[in-house]
């Protein structure tokens, strides 16, 4: 487990050229066509890091999350948790190491189970259920996430949205996982509750040395939580960088456009005019070359002909012809 890569980093989660393809029916009698939901993703997540994964609907964020949770095998490529390939891991072992927190605490908790049962289920599934010890364990985790013990025998519909999301957090953490996948953890919650859950997640990460993957379309939340951010577009990570660098000096035109769309509360500014005029392309029929070129403000002639290479930046990488010295305008220096 203490195996480290060449930089001395303890890599807890790694994706090597991971691809997931779905066969989509193109219509009656027309056969099926491939949809590359995730298309050649390379990623290393060191222990203790919070990786933000951002992108529009349909970019493959949720497919990525499902693969990281072991709910969906990759079509090709390999995922590693603690340097063990997930294809060689048992289902239960995977569940012990990687746990999810879902978006909507109203639909992700079984309405017919008590809070105690919901939180205890991951332990019961693992098979080591000593009921008295388990009860104590559940009460400890409830206290940790700020749920009063008296809710043990209550049902989800008796709880507020914030309390429900705390139940989801408790359920994810009771087996002491290594990685927690937070898929839009706060977007179903009110503003005042959202901040409580974000604070809780931050505290727990420090306390339990957790690694988070935060998937969100709310860039302000990602900026606040993440140490590194990966920007996804049509199944590929088009830019990965440390959060500071990404927000201060975005490289990829898509990242720039995304950041321009963030509405910070400032009455002196109007609504930004996003340059992303054309609608999101159909992933079954992606554009040629760089898949972003029809929406790109900096599109050049060869962008529609060849796919960009992966170009290393200070704290990550970017996939864009602009920064390719051989073909682009050589602006990588900026």
């Amino acid at each position, binding site marked *: 487990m203490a195996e480290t890569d060449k930089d001395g980093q303890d890599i807890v989660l790694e994706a090597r050229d991971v691809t997931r393809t779905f066969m989509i029916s193109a219509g009656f009698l027309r056969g099926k066509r491939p949809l590359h939901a995730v298309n050649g993703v390379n990623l290393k997540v060191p222990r203790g890091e919070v990786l933000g994964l951002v992108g529009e609907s349909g970019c493959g964020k949720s497919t990525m999350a499902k693969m990281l949770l072991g709910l969906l095998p990759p079509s090709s490529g390999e995922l590693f948790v603690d340097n063990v390939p997930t294809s060689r891991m048992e289902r239960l072992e995977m569940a012990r190491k990687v746990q999810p927190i879902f978006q909507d605490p109203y639909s992700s908790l079984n309405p017919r189970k008590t809070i105690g049962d919901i939180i205890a289920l991951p332990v019961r599934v693992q098979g080591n259920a000593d009921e008295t010890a388990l009860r104590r364990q559940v009460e400890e985790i409830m206290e940790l996430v700020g749920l009063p013990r008296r809710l043990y025998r209550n049902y989800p519909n008796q709880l507020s949205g914030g309390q429900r999301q705390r139940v989801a957090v408790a359920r994810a953490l009771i087996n002491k996982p290594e990685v927690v996948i937070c898929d839009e953890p706060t977007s179903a919650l009110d503003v005042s509750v959202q901040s409580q859950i974000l604070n809780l997640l931050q505290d727990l990460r420090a306390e339990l040395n957790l690694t988070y993957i935060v998937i969100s379309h709310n860039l302000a939340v990602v900026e606040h939580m993440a140490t590194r951010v990966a920007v996804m577009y049509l199944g590929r990570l088009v830019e990965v960088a440390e959060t500071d660098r990404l*927000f201060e000096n975005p490289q990829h035109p898509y990242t720039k456009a995304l950041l321009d769309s*963030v*509405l910070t509360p400032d009455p002196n500014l109007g609504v930004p005019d*996003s340059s992303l005029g054309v609608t999101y392309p159909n992933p079954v029929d992606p554009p040629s070359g760089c898949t972003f070129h029809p929406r790109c403000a900096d599109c050049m002639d060869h962008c529609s002909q060849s796919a960009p290479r992966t170009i290393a930046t200070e704290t990550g990488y970017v996939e864009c012809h602009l920064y390719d010295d051989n073909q682009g305008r050589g602006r990588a220096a900026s």
Partner: protein
Amino acid sequence: MTDGTEHELILKVENLTVDIPVAAGMLHPVQAVSFEVRRGETLCIVGESGCGKSLTSLSIMNLLPSTAIRTATHLALDGEELQNVSENRMADIRGDKMAMIFQEPMTSLNPSYTIGNQLEEALLRHRKVSKSEARDRAVYLLEKVGITAARSRLTQYPHQLSGGLRQRVMIAMALMCGPEMIIADEPTTALDVTIQAQILHLLADLQKEFNMGMILITHDLGVVSRIADRVAVMYAGQVVETGTAKQVFENPTHPYTQGLLECIPIPGKTERGAHLGSIPGIVPSLVGDLPGCHFADRCRYAADRCRTGEITLRDSFDPGHVYRCVLQPDECAAHLKKGAA
């Protein structure tokens, strides 16, 4: 954002109250809400779930559930009092002079009718026009809201369009009869940030172009600050603070408004990973009478005097900026500075 063009009053709401009898007693989801909207002006109603913002808009449209009881001293659209008009007259107004854009473009379009059908319906209902004239108007508006190949879209069904396109269709539908007042209830909540910016931009442009009054209901403070001329912050059925966007965002006076603004992470302002502000506790039940300040149980500055009598709206520093709190404006501002330090 207010330029010196036209400022004719289009909607006047005074002491709008909604009561709904429920098993446990009388629910008061909207309590004496007052505001005015002028032509070309955007009023944003902001608040959390259950604060009464959606019911406020539904009661203006007279689309409340049948058990609800609506009262007001004034509820006037373009000078016409709406409280006692017949349902027939209200149906004439709805979709014609006053139109609504709903939150969920997935569920508020009828899946079994084509886009064209649904767009033309309002115009055919309200105006004496031929089918082809209605179709031309639909094509014109679809192009206006940025939909390409508009004529071919008319024969498509809602499921054939993406979420962003459906919301554009909803906007086009609301504009069919050239309304004077438009009410948009969370128009961008279900959409991606990139599409959200486009839709808001579009709404603001169209509103200026057609010189409409607009009420935009949202819980997103970022959206409010960018698009609003005036802001009304609602909490537990009451307006707790109103003013221009600049007044409310730069000098938030009510402790609830201050709390809300501390809760959201702002890139470049809030420290990464640091604790965000939070508002402890939950919204009080609005069944039965609730004496004093509704926010008292969650307020950091609450004292005994907050819990009795009725707290009325009072002036903050600038004219037109009012809030509902026992504290003086400078006391509130002092608290805000202390909170920030």
